[in-house]
């Protein structure tokens, strides 16, 4: 039995190197761990989606027809908790990041493979705490756990949920430490910082936010649990505490957490845009540093969640200006992506549809963010559906579009199979339409004054709410289609070759799927990222690819 082929003469790769449940549950291969994460987060995405179905069904009519008010509070809280902590935060880093970072930098694995596996178990333990809370009846505090309601008055399962959020933080920290060390210490010879793919830069910036922010929310949640269990008054004003301190500590993490969700997605978009325009990305260093500056600025803006929480006007003004500054690096990215499109050889493959969708939707989400950072406007639309629409444009229109675009781009690399072109393009369009129909009316509703987190509303708002509920149905269908064809493709999809998109990057130089140790020959890099240069033969990825020595053995089947 050789290193390159298994007993049946098939090319040996990470999926067929070993079989059985144990080979998966005890694996230390970053690629298999990425797939384990993919399974887990998909489950929580589906659960969070179910909660959203409940919310949109209730809001289809002005009255309280479907669920009790208390149930409604639990629905939107669990929707937020599941989607933010168990889906969005780990989504791209734990799946695509885990799979791709070692491949993109020419390493055999992440620096700490056992820690990586442990992080998946920690994630699932956190998921079990949260599921336990759901099974008991859920939480009604909102995902923000504001005190003293959460510590003293709420009659729901705060401690179990808090335990889940506390625990999932450790799995993020484990992943982030792994990424930072791997990116610093394990790059292939010749792969300097400014030759790294922008996906790697984005994950580096994300990891910085995770390691600096997550511990703070962990200790804050610990204080909430201590206050609730021991009946002491850390945040309860009736017992001498300060509830605003909770908000400061909570948002010190939870605002940067937004960048944990969006930065990896931006990294994906940078990869997609350059691959499908056959052009070196415009302003590489600007995009790289924009990721880092978003990570840094992200820690200085938390007060914009607290304009109406007894913060002084001066503090509010400072936080307002700092928040607007985040628009600068974000705009640098959007403009550079657009500039890359200019005179590019654009192909309309499925991942590119997601990338273009991302640019439009993220721009709307970002610009409404600038509106919300403006003190006068924020006071008007605070706690309305305008805010809900804004952060769904960033998180769903941004983060999830990037996540799905990335999944479609690297699916052939991950599974070695292609998915059906028609259905994938169809679902990308369905998602785009459904998304806008769901959330654009919410901007209007919020601007007209409909507050968030209520299960009833005046009859005047019904038309827009019905549009939103109808859009959510379309969006749900759009999310279900990929679930079917991805599973289908794993068995029946056409086999993908090493580089189905003709893209440039170390991950495309090894087999699809890659061998267990990623490369048969450790790669050396002597070219810049995205070297789609005019002087390269043909200027395309295929020609570039053919000209380079590959580290891959001949295909056997």
């Amino acid at each position, binding site marked *: *039995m*050789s*290193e390159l082929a298994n007993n049946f003469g098939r090319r040996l790769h990470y999926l067929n190197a070993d079989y059985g449940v144990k080979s998966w549950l005890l694996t230390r291969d970053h690629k298999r761990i990425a797939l384990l994460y993919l399974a887990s987060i998909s489950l929580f995405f589906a659960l969070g989606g179910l909660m959203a179905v409940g919310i949109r069904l209730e809001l289809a009519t002005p009255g309280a027809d479907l669920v009790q008010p208390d149930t409604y509070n639990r629905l939107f809280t669990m929707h937020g908790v599941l989607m933010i902590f168990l889906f969005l935060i780990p989504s791209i880093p734990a799946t695509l990041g885990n799979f791709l970072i070692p491949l993109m930098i020419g*390493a*055999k*694995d*992440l*620096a*700490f*493979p056992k820690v990586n596996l442990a992080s998946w178990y920690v994630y699932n333990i956190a998921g079990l705490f949260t599921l336990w809370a759901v099974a008991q009846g859920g939480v009604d505090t909102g995902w923000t756990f504001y005190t003293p309601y959460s510590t003293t008055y709420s009659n729901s399962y705060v401690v179990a949920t808090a335990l889940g959020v506390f625990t999932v933080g450790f799995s993020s*920290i484990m992943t982030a*430490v*792994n990424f*930072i*060390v*791997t990116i*610093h*210490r*394990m790059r292939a010879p010749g792969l300097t910082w400014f030759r790294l793919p922008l996906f790697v830069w984005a994950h580096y910036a994300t990891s910085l936010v995770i*390691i*600096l*922010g*997550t*511990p*703070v929310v*962990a*200790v*804050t949640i*610990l*204080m909430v649990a*201590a206050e609730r269990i*021991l*009946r*002491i*008054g*850390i945040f309860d004003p009736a*017992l*001498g*505490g*300060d509830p605003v*301190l909770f908000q*400061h*500590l909570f948002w010190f993490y939870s605002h940067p957490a937004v960048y944990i969700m969006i930065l990896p997605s931006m990294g994906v978009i940078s990869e997609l845009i350059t691959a499908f325009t056959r052009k070196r990305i415009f302003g590489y260093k600007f995009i790289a540093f924009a990721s880092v500056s978003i990570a840094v600025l992200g820690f200085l803006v938390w007060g914009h969640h607290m304009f109406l929480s007894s913060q002084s006007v001066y503090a509010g003004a400072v936080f307002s200006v700092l928040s607007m500054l985040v628009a600068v690096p974000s705009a640098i990215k959007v403009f550079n992506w657009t500039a890359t499109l200019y005179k590019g050889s654009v192909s309309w493959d499925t991942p590119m549809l997601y990338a273009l969708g991302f640019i439009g939707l993220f721009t709307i989400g970002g610009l409404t963010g600038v509106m919300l950072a403006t003190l006068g406007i924020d006071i008007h639309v605070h706690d309305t559906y305008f805010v809900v629409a804004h952060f769904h444009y960033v998180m769903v229109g941004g983060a999830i579009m990037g996540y799905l675009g990335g999944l479609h781009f690297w699916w052939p690399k991950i599974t070695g199979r292609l998915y059906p072109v028609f259905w994938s393009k169809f679902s990308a369009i369905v998602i785009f339409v459904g998304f806008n129909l769901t959330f654009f009316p919410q901007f209007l509703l919020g601007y007209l004054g409909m507050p968030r987190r209520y299960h009833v509303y005046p009859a005047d708002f019904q038309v827009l709410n019905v549009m939103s509920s109808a859009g959510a149905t379309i969006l749900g269908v759009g999310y279900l289609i990929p679930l079917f064809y991805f599973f289908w493709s794993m068995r029946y999809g056409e086999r993908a070759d090493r580089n189905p998109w003709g893209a440039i990057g170390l991950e495309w130089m090894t087999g699809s799927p890659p061998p267990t*140790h990623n490369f048969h020959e*450790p790669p050396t890099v002597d070219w810049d990222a995205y070297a789609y240069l005019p002087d390269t033969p043909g200027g395309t990825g295929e020609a570039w690819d053919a000209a380079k020595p590959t580290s891959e053995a001949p295909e056997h089947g």
Partner: protein
Amino acid sequence: MAEIHAPGLAHHFDSYQQQKEAAFFGMWVFLATEVLFFGGLFCAYLVYRSANPEAFAAGSRELDIVLGAINTAVLIGSSLTMALAVHAAQVGKRKMIAAWMGATILLGGTFLGIKVVEYSHKIHEGHFPGPNFVWHGPEVNVEMFFNVYFLMTGLHALHMIIGIGIMLVLIPLAWKGRFTPESHNYVEGFGLYWHFVDIVWIFLFPLLYLLDVG
């Protein structure tokens, strides 16, 4: 196909040097998260002390400075023995690694023992926060001082207990000769952790015990 590797070198590293750099760098990054973890509590301390200066001074007077000072000395001593264990690993004396770590456990245990005495004393006096908290003095909100005191020292003690648990795993490995001068990252990395826990106490002692001295 089995590949032949140097002992103690994981397959995905090219050299001991790379493995060592990765291990230490990872430890430093982890310690950065620990700083932020305690940082949340230090932030709460800062806010509540500036809001209740008299209460914090009054609460601080209730603590036993002598026991706190003894504990500070004990903990600094344990950092010394830990450093000696790391040195023993660097020169390849496997029994000395185990012996110095054993000494570190003894000193850490002494610290925790003294902490238990202090805690039980406070609980006995009714200074444990909660519905049964008692305070007879004129100061308002002294309970907040004890909230912060128990949270900070409790979290610190938890870190020490975890540290002692890790040493109980490392000592048998050291005895069996798992750690060589080329490859002893667990010992040296753990040393960083132990020194960090020590340093946290160096901040806690003056902030909690010495508020109203002189």
